């Protein structure tokens, strides 16, 4: 096993994670979520705004897919971290992440099917009965 700097592994995870976030931002319409987390020396910060993007028809589907991508990326980060410290804990956490992803997907897809049944569309934008 040659020398792969830990950082590259983390970076890979970060990129995949960000792509997951991008996927969610791009494919979902909506509401404006303002996340403010500062990333500077004293605190982590990230700001992003979800600009309205019109959805296509298969939307809710893609959102779930990207949540899975993000969870996978987070799991990857754990495995990398575990490898860095030579511990099995990272892999153990990954297994737990796997279980979580499975449970979430089961319910998520169930909801998606219900959504399709009720609203005749997967476009979460059209499921807006609740705007107050």
């Amino acid at each position, binding site marked *: 096993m040659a020398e792969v700097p830990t950082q590259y592994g983390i970076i890979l995870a970060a990129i995949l994670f960000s792509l997951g976030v991008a996927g969610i931002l791009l494919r979902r319409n909506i509401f404006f979520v303002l996340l403010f987390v500062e990333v500077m020396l004293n*605190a982590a*910060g990230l700001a992003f705004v979800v600009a309205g993007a019109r959805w296509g028809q298969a939307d809710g589907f893609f959102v779930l897919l990207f949540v899975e991508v993000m969870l996978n990326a987070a799991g990857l980060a754990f495995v990398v971290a575990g490898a860095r410290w030579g511990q099995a804990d990272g892999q153990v*956490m990954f297994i737990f992440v796997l279980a979580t992803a499975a*449970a979430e997907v089961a319910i998520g897809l169930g909801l998606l099917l219900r959504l399709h049944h009720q609203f005749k569309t997967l476009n979460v934008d059209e*499921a807006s*009965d609740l705007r*107050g």
Partner: protein
Amino acid sequence: MTSADILSLLPLLVVATTGVVVMLAAAFYRNHRLSLILTLAGLLTAFISLPFVSPLTPRQVTSLVLVDGYALFYMGLIFAAGFIVALLTYGYLEQWDGNPEELYVLLLLATLGAAVLVGSSHFASFFLGLETLSVALYAMIAYNRSLRRGIEAGIKYLVLAGVTAAFLLFGMALVYAETGTLAFSGVIAVAGGGPSLQLMVGLGMLIVGVGFKLGVVPFHMWTPDVYQGAPAPVTGLLASMSKGAMFALLLRYFTPVMALERQGLVWVFTAVAVLSMLGGNILALTQDNVKRILAYSSIAHLGYLLVAFLASGPAGQLAVAFYLVAYFATTLSAFGVVTVLSTPDEEAESLRAYQGLYYRRPWLAIIFTIALLSLAGIPPTAGLVGKIFIAAAGVQASLWLLLIVLVLASVIGVFYYMRIVITMFRRPEADVVQPSMVRLPRAASVVLGALSVILVGLGIYPVPVMRIIERTVARLV
């Protein structure tokens, strides 16, 4: 794991077992009442086991769970909340022709998740407890699956919680990469040696995740929608158990982190608190949907709690614990009233449905009024005493800005709480359609009555609860 270890986990084991038992019972013999009784019996047993477990504490069971006075206190609160919601749900679901038994299983599993959350001392149990709670909630929110708004609320909550979970996980992984340990104590030890940038990013992501779960500004976006679309008793659960458990965890483990004098962190939490207190109350002014009003109000209350969190120290701990008790009682009482007036297919959401409630159901109106008074912080309720504790802690820690905002926000809050009260006492106009008279299930009435008594009782005589808190919670440094 020794037998003492297993014994100290007894409350958790009882709840888990009950969940499985209820599921099996429903598999063989579907009976709504049976499910309810089993659920109540289980939660009651778990609650009663708490003082028996107490002599064994504090006990670190594997590195995942720490059973101590703090955990037991909040577990008690969580079990009580589950018990109350189960009772309220019964009457609510009786009017539905779907299968009600699954909800009790999910309720028990959610309770278990929350209980694990408050006892966790390791990222693994933190995450697993949180996810168990969340996954159960997804299904509970969308439980009436033929209701469009329920499905919508469920999906929104799932997406939100899923992204949150990913953020939390990523943050945990970063912290782990930095420190080499997943146990909270280990993380704190390493962080004390001068946090690095990577550690801070990890912590930041953790905060984002926690913020979403607490529903504070600016992570509050879908809270009102989810509250509105979920069945009323589930909303009650969301507002109390879900937020309360997360906050207990936050208090326990972020306090030492804050104590490392990370000015930035303090600033972040202060900003969040201020925005939540003001935002929650101001946004509630524009609503005329009772569930949404309560949703925004809960955002504000979490803001108040954050003030106590920032105050830290024994005074802060006491304030948080007491305020959470009051908050649980109030929230469950308020949503209990909403539940009792609703059916799964048509909820009593709009303000108009409450017009003249006093003349149709005087006791319900009074119960609701007491709950609203407590939320507003008007004597002689527990809510006021709680706010006084928070203010006291704030003064002790010289959090002047926060205290000013607290007072200001509370004043704003009075307006919309009073609006509901006034609506209830106003004589209904002739053309207002009266919602059908819902038969009041006896169990629900008893529960609601008891909650009101507690709210007023605590407002007048908070000492017994204070003693309990001091003996269990406040022993944390």
